């Protein structure tokens, strides 16, 4: 790491630039988790934020290995490129990967167009996550959510307590002052930890750029076959995603701004095929990151409700 303002004649005292300051803060958080909890786990969603969290974990415990496993809650509806990337990336950083799926719900034929997005998320993400956490007996779960993503997340603490049912009570959050993180929990409670709380989407991309961090190729623009549905470009990966009358798959230059399940995450039209081009595109865009994430908009206060129920 090279440091700002350390030219030989510079009279000024040294300072960190904003990415270095965020990095130092996140490393502090990751180390607190390992020091204070018996059995932490990192929720690994395969997205860019997960990639950044993994790099920060490598830095925090260097020269030792990453001292916790990764947990991927697999809905089975993720993009195939994500799964390929997941397996290679986890192996390359030397972390143990746990994959958990709500097999029962999948066997019942659960999918968003059959049961609706709210119930689908509830079964395949929230319930599956809570089951996996209790099966592993994890007392702390690290997640890559950021406060700038969504307005209920702007209220989230870095150490966020969940009750025995995995639920969040936004009205009874612990005050969090200075860098002092309260890790005390009662039996049955657990903590969700958000080391990237203070990062913005652009910070994440700038960090990926300066650190040269691998990410899923879906983030880069290329010609893909998609169904144009309103503002959203849907990639047809699942058999139940079918064209409606008048729709016809077409080839368009596009990329994913945010990664989720393929039926519920739209691509955006884009020519950005490198990280600097993505950053330039983000600086110019007028649409928010999660705008094409259907699950954020399926009811008023969607994310807050999902979070209360245990979604991360």
């Amino acid at each position, binding site marked *: 790491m*090279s440091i700002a303002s350390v030219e030989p004649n*510079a009279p000024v005292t040294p300072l960190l630039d*904003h990415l270095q300051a965020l990095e130092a*803060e996140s490393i502090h958080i990751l180390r607190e988790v390992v020091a204070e909890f018996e059995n932490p786990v990192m929720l690994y969603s395969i997205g860019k934020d997960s990639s950044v969290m993994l790099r920060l974990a490598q830095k925090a415990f260097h020269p030792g290995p990453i001292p916790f496993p990764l947990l991927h809650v697999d809905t089975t509806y993720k993009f195939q490129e994500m799964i390929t990337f997941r397996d290679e990336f986890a192996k390359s950083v030397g972390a143990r990967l746990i994959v958990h799926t709500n097999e029962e719900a999948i066997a019942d034929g659960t999918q968003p167009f059959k049961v609706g997005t709210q119930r689908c998320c509830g079964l395949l993400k929230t319930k599956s996550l809570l089951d996996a956490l209790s099966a592993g007996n994890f007392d702390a779960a690290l997640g890559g959510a950021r406060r700038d993503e969504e307005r209920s997340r702007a209220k989230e603490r870095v150490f966020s307590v969940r009750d025995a049912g995995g639920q969040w009570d936004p009205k009874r959050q612990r005050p969090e002052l200075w860098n002092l993180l309260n890790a005390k929990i009662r039996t049955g409670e657990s903590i969700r930890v958000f080391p990237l709380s203070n990062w913005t989407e652009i910070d994440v991309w700038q960090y990926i750029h300066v650190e040269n961090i691998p990410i899923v190729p879906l983030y880069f623009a290329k010609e893909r076959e998609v169904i144009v549905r309103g503002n959203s470009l849907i990639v047809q990966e699942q058999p139940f995603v079918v064209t409606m009358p008048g729709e016809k798959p077409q080839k368009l230059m596009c990329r994913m701004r945010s990664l989720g399940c393929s039926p519920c995450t739209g691509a955006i039209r884009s020519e950005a095929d490198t990280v600097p081009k993505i950053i330039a595109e983000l600086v110019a865009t007028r649409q928010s990151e999660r705008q094409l994430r259907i699950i954020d908009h399926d009811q008023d206060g969607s994310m807050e409700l999902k979070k209360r129920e245990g979604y991360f």
Partner: protein
Amino acid sequence: MASSTSSTTSGLLRICTAGSVDDGKSTLIGRLLYDSQSVYDDQISSVEKASKNRTAGPIDFSLFTDGLKAEREQGITIDVAYRYFATARRKFILADTPGHEQYTRNMATGASTADVAILLVDARNGMLAQSRRHAKIARLLGISDFVLAVNKMDLMDFDREVFEKINDDFEDLLAGANVHAIPMSALLGDNVITKSERTPWFTGPSLLEFLENVHVHRNLAALPFRFPVQLVVRPDSDFRGYAGQIAGGTVRVGDRIFTWPSGRSANVKRIVTYDGDLDMAFAPMSVTLTLDAEIDISRGDTLTAEPPMVGQRFEAEVVWMDERPLDPGRTYLLKHGTRSVTAEINHGLVLNQIGTVMVSTARPLVFDRYETNRFTGSFIIIDPSTHFTAGAGMIVNPVREGSAPVTHTMTWAERLAQIARGAQSDEEAAELVRKALEEMLT
């Protein structure tokens, strides 16, 4: 990590807002986010849709910041929310804190990490009890750079005298701090991003110009070296490193350091990071140190260059944040840096009360005065049964072991009230309280 620029100001500025309900905090933040293009079109249209037009114009800016359903339903901000925006010069983290008195604890939370406080005042009302209270909390939490945003100037015809009168009123309260006062209309955008033509008499920078350029007077790297050990990193028998975030000062390879509370010394052998070893590191970097001698060091110990204050008793200002009052008969958990200990506190406080107390800990702590170092001078108090973060403390003074226990148990507020009662007139009371407060805060 490669750093891109060297500049005279830090790349990251942390700000908190303060002020009474309806002084226009949310509107100002909305305006800052909107004009710096930090909110997106889909967020704007969803807010427009939901706008019940509570206070603001066509867009109710507060709906951007009030993230909880309960807040939107009640039309008030309950919990601190964090906002992020950037200009070409700087990145900003803004803690948007509630104005209601019952949420004072959240004001303290927001102020605890802020470099600068924006204190909003409604030009029609001037200084209210809550703005005064927030200013005091911000000072107590160690903020010495303020923007006094005299808002709603459009409703006072941008009258210079109104602005200067309010400015004068706050001069005493914020004495000793660096104060930049700005006449403003958050709703219409005057002096928020650019200078307003409607205040030709105002010569200072706009709010954003000020925030982009303010030099924060706190400089952690210039303080004495403090390194609270977070973790001992031992991947194999050849490597034993101490991981932590530097809480003050700088450290170089070869420096002689002491470990506390044991007092044993060694030299710094390596400063290890994932990106390669460093010759020098400074606060607030997160690094791993190795030493040239085998000494017993574990989490909670502190490495320093000079002997620090070490003790089990100190005087502290405490903000109480739990509905269950502080009970001097109970034993609490106290977290200071990376060390957690049990502690007793000599007198009670109720929710949102701030008081000077005596803290006795079961094991020694290595600390500084809060006014010297925010990180080594602060602690939180945890309720041992609910595990709620019940109090936040700032160390004022160490108390020598064996010295007589301090008997005065009057709180901060009680002392001020007593002083005010002794005065002959309201003016005299205000003056006496001001002086007393100044003494307490400096």
